[in-house]
C-alpha cells in the first residue's frame, strides 16, 4: 500500500507542497535563456519588463489544454500590478533548478503555485517600488502602484515600470514571505475570464504544438513496436523499407524490458513522414515470443470471477465489524461492478523532436512531465542529464498520457542512431495500441441497511492488477474513499492478478473508476431503502465535519460535499416530476482536493439514450482563478467521462491491444454532447485544481439517471449496447 500511496498523485504532490512554498525556490534569479529584448529589465526568472512597458511572464508548467499558461501568469500579473493587455506569456524551458516542479499532473499546479507565484509578482512589484523610491529619494513606504506605474502620492509623481525595470533588476529582492499580498477583494485580474495568449496562433494555424516543430536538417521517423508489449525483434527484412523513395535509413532499436522505458522496435527515417510511414509498412518484422503473449481480456475476466468468489488476498482497511453489521442489518444489498481498460486517445498523436549531436541532446517535447524523460534519455543514450535541453511545447491534449516519456526517449535514440535531428510521429494505431492504459477493475460490494434505512456496514472486495503487495500503476485504491469513516463498519479487501500491459494515470486516475462504482452502488442503497438518492446522500454525509486528518490529501469534509450536493440539487430542480422514460441521476465525488456533484437528465426511447442536460457544482476553494478556463475544465471533464462511459474499452488478445483507432475506441461526438451548466461554490479553503475532479462523479450520474429513466442498472462499462 505504501508504494501505491506514494504513486498517488494527490498524496505525492501534497508532500511536496511544503518544500515548494518554504524553500524560497520560486525566486531563483537565474536568467531565462530565451527571448530577451534590448533594454529589458529582468526582475526574476519569471518576469521581464521592456522599456516600452511590455511585460513578459514565464509560465513554468506545460500547457496541455488545462489553461495553465494563462492562469499561472495571471497570478504573477495580479501582484506585479500590470495591465493584462501588456503581458506576453512565454513557456519556460524544462529546468527544475530555476522553476521547481514543472508537471502538468494531479490537478496540482493551482494548489501548489497559488501563493508562491503571487509572491513572485509581489517581489517584482517591490523591486520596482524600491527603484522608484531611490530615484525620487523618498521612502519606499510612501510609494504605491497603479497598473504599470509606481506612484508617489505626496508629490503626485509617477514612473512607468518600463523606465524602472533595469534599475530594479540590479536591486536585492526582499524575502517573498515578508511581503503582503493583495486582499482578494482588490483583485483585477484573478477572478476575471482571460483567454489564452496562444489563441490567435491556434485559430490561424500557426505552429505551436510539438508535432509542428521543425529544426534545420530534420528528418522524419516512424517506430514500429511489437503488438505484444515489450516483445523483441526476432528478425526483420529492412530492404523493402529502404527501397521506398525518400527513406534514408531503417534500423533495429534494441531497447529494454521495462514497459515504461525504451522498448525494442524498428525505426524508419525519411525525408517526409509519409515516406517514413510507407517504409514502416513495408517492413517484414518477426517478433520474438514474449511471456505475456497468453494475456487476454477474457482471461482477466475469468480470473477476476474466481478471485471475487475466493477469500481476498489482503485487507487494506477494516473499521468495526462488517460481518456482524450485515447479520444485524434489516437489509443486505450486494452488487458487482466492473470497468474496462481505456486509452487516453490524445488527438495529437505521441510525437517528439530530438537532435543528438556531439554528446548533447536537444529535445522539443509535448510532455506533461519533462524530468523523468530527461532521466530516461540520459540512461538510454549514455549522456549526462545536464547535456540534455528540453523545450516544452504546447501539448495537443494531455489527460495523463504525457506524464510518460516513451516517445521522448524513442526520438532521442533514433536521432542518435540516424545521425540527424528527427521528428518522431506515431501513427494513430501506434498511439492506441501503445498507451499507458487506465486499468480495468472489478468491485464486489455488500452493504447493510438498518430498519431506518441508514447504512450500517460497507464492504468492497476490489479485484485489480498487481503482484504481492504491489499494485500495477494506477490500479491501486486508497482505502479511505467515502463512505469510509462515515460508516462505523467498513472493510476494503483486495485481490490482485499479474498484468503485462502498460498502465498509467488517466484524468482523475483511479477516482475516474471509483466514482462510478461507489456512487452507483450508493444509488442502489438509496433505492433499496426507499429513499430519494439526494436525501440518502445528505443523511450519509451527516453533520459538517472533517473525516481524516487535517492537511492530508485523503481527508474529506462532509460539509463541503453537502454544499455542492445541495447546490446541484437546487440548480437541476431535483425532485421535480419527469415524463415516462426520462430520469434524473445524481452523484458526488471527492478527488484531487475538489468536491464535485453532478446531476444528469436523460431519456431512453427504444434503446436510444439521450442526455438532455448536465448540471455540475464544484467546490475548489475560495477563488476561481480564470472563470473561462474553469468552466471549460468542468465541462470538458464531464463530457470526457460521458464519452468513456458510453463507448470506450481497450481489450487484449495475444498480449496485445485489440483496438487501434477512433473507429473502435470512439471519442464523444458533438451530437452526443449535452449542455453542461457549471456552478462554483466558493468556500473558505485554499484554491485547488480543476483539471480532474469533475470527471469522477459523471459516469455514476449518467448511469444513475439511466436507472431513474428505465429501471435498468448499469454495472459494467462501457454502456455500449446494453440499453438496446
Amino acid at each position, binding site marked *: 500500500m505504501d508504494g501505491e500511496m506514494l504513486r498517488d498523485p494527490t498524496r505525492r504532490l501534497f508532500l511536496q507542497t511544503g518544500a515548494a512554498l518554504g524553500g524560497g525556490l520560486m525566486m531563483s534569479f537565474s536568467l531565462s535563456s530565451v527571448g530577451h529584448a534590448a533594454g529589458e529589465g529582468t526582475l526574476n526568472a519569471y518576469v521581464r519588463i521592456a522599456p516600452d512597458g511590455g511585460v513578459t511572464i514565464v509560465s513554468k508548467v506545460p500547457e*496541455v*489544454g488545462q*489553461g495553465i499558461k494563462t492562469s499561472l501568469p495571471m497570478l504573477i500579473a495580479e501582484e506585479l500590478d500590470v495591465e493584462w493587455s501588456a503581458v506576453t506569456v512565454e513557456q519556460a524551458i524544462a529546468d527544475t533548478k530555476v522553476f521547481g516542479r514543472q508537471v502538468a499532473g494531479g490537478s496540482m499546479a493551482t494548489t501548489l503555485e497559488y501563493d508562491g507565484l503571487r509572491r513572485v509578482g509581489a517581489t517584482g512589484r517591490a523591486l520596482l517600488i524600491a527603484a522608484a523610491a531611490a530615484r525620487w529619494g523618498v521612502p519606499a513606504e510612501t510609494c504605491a502602484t497603479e497598473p504599470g506605474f509606481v506612484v508617489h502620492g505626496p508629490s503626485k509623481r509617477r514612473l512607468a515600470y518600463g523606465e524602472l525595470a533595469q534599475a530594479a533588476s540590479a536591486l536585492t529582492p526582499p524575502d517573498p514571505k515578508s511581503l503582503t499580498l493583495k486582499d482578494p477583494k482588490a483583485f483585477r485580474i484573478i477572478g476575471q*475570464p482571460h*483567454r*489564452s495568449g*496562444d*489563441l*490567435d496562433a*491556434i*485559430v*490561424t*494555424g*500557426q*505552429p*505551436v*504544438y510539438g*508535432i*509542428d516543430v*521543425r529544426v534545420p536538417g530534420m528528418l*522524419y521517423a516512424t517506430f514500429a513496436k511489437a503488438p505484444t508489449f515489450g516483445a523483441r525483434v526476432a528478425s526483420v527484412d529492412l530492404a523493402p523499407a529502404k527501397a521506398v*523513395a*525518400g527513406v534514408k535509413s531503417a534500423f533495429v532499436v534494441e531497447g529494454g524490458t521495462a514497459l515504461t522505458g525504451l522498448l525494442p522496435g524498428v525505426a524508419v527515417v525519411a525525408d*517526409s*513522414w*509519409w*515516406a517514413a510511414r510507407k517504409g514502416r509498412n513495408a517492413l517484414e518484422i518477426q517478433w520474438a515470443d514474449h511471456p505475456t503473449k497468453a494475456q487476454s481480456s477474457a482471461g482477466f475476466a475469468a480470473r477476476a470471477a474466481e478471485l471475487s468468489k475466493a477469500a481476498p488476498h489482503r485487507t487494506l482497511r477494516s473499521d468495526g465489524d462488517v460481518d456482524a453489521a450485515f447479520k444485524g442489518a434489516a437489509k443486505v444489498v450486494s452488487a458487482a461492478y466492473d470497468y474496462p481498460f481505456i486509452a487516453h*486517445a*490524445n*488527438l*495529437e*498523436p505521441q510525437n517528439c523532436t530530438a537532435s543528438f549531436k556531439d554528446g548533447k541532446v536537444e529535445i522539443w517535447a509535448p510532455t506533461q512531465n519533462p524530468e523523468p524523460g530527461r532521466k530516461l534519455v540520459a540512461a538510454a543514450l549514455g549522456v549526462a542529464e545536464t547535456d540534455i535541453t528540453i523545450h516544452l511545447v*504546447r*501539448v*495537443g*491534449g*494531455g*489527460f495523463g498520457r504525457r506524464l510518460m516519456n516513451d516517445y521522448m526517449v524513442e526520438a532521442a535514440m533514433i536521432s542518435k542512431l540516424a545521425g540527424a535531428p528527427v521528428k518522431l*510521429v506515431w*501513427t*494513430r494505431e501506434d498511439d492506441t495500441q501503445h498507451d499507458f492504459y487506465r486499468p480495468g477493475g472489478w468491485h464486489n460490494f455488500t452493504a447493510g441497511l438498518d430498519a431506518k434505512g441508514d447504512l450500517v456496514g460497507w464492504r468492497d472486495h476490489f479485484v485489480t492488477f498487481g503482484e504481492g503487495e504491489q499494485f500495477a500503476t494506477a490500479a491501486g485504491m486508497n482505502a479511505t474513499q467515502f463512505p469510509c469513516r462515515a460508516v462505523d463498519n467498513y472493510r476494503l479487501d483486495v485481490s490482485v492478478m499479474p498484468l503485462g500491459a502498460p498502465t498509467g494515470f488517466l484524468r482523475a486516475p483511479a477516482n475516474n473508476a471509483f466514482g462510478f462504482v461507489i456512487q452507483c452502488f450508493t444509488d442502489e442503497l438509496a433505492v433499496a431503502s426507499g429513499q430519494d438518492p439526494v436525501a440518502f446522500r445528505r443523511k450519509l454525509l451527516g453533520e459538517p465535519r472533517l473525516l481524516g486528518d487535517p492537511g492530508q490529501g485523503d481527508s474529506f469534509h462532509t460539509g463541503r460535499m453537502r454544499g455542492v450536493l445541495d447546490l446541484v440539487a437546487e440548480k437541476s430542480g431535483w425532485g421535480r416530476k419527469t415524463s415516462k422514460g426520462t430520469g434524473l441521476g445524481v452523484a458526488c465525488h471527492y478527488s484531487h482536493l475538489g468536491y464535485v456533484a453532478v446531476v444528469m437528465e436523460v431519456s431512453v426511447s427504444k434503446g436510444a439514450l439521450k442526455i438532455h442536460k448536465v448540471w455540475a457544482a464544484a467546490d475548489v476553494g475560495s477563488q476561481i482563478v480564470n472563470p*473561462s478556463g474553469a468552466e*471549460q*475544465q468542468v*465541462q*470538458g471533464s464531464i*463530457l*470526457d467521462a460521458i*464519452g468513456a462511459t458510453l463507448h470506450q474499452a481497450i481489450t487484449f488478445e495475444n498480449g496485445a491491444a485489440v483496438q487501434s*483507432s*477512433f*473507429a473502435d475506441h470512439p*471519442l*464523444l*461526438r*458533438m*451530437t452526443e*454532447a449535452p*449542455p*453542461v451548466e457549471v456552478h462554483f461554490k466558493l468556500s473558505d479553503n485554499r484554491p485547488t485544481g480543476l483539471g480532474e475532479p469533475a470527471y469522477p462523479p459523471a459516469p455514476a450520474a449518467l448511469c444513475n439517471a439511466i436507472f431513474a429513466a428505465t429501471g435498468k442498472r448499469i454495472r459494467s462499462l462501457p454502456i455500449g449496447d446494453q440499453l438496446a
Partner: protein
Amino acid sequence: MAFTLTINGETRSVEVEGDTPLLWVLRDTLGLVGTKFGCGAAQCGACTVHIDGAPVRACITPVRRVGDKKVVTIEGVGKDPVGAKVQDAWKTIDVPQCGYCQAGQIMSATALLTANPKPDDAAIDEAMNGNLCRCATYIRIKAAIKAASGQGA
C-alpha cells in the same frame, strides 16, 4: 512527380510521390503545419481543408487527385470573410482547450456557414459531427458557430 497546387491563392510547385496525402504535402513539403494529423483515416476531421470550397479530409486525399482545384487551409481561411468571422467568434467565445482539433473545426464551420449562413442545431450537428474534439469543447464550438452566424451565443 511534380505537382502544381493552388494553396491559399498562391501557386506552389512540389516534387512528391503521387500517393502522398495532401496533409503531408502541406505539413512536411510546404511547411503549412496548421492542418493537423489526428488519425490518417478520416475519422477525426483534424486535417480538414477546403478544396474548391468543400470540406475535405486531407489525410486521405492523395495529392495527385487535387489537380488544379483551389485548396484553402487554416493559414488562408482568414482571407475569406466567413472564415475571418468564424475565427473571430472562436476567439470571442474562447473555444479551445488544447486547441489541436480547432483548425479542422474552423474549416468545417466555415464551409457550413458559407453554404448555410443561419444553420439550426441540426444543421450544425450534421456538419460538425465528423470533427472530434478530445477536450470536448463542443458546447463552445456550437456557441461560436451561432455567434459567427449572427444568431447569438
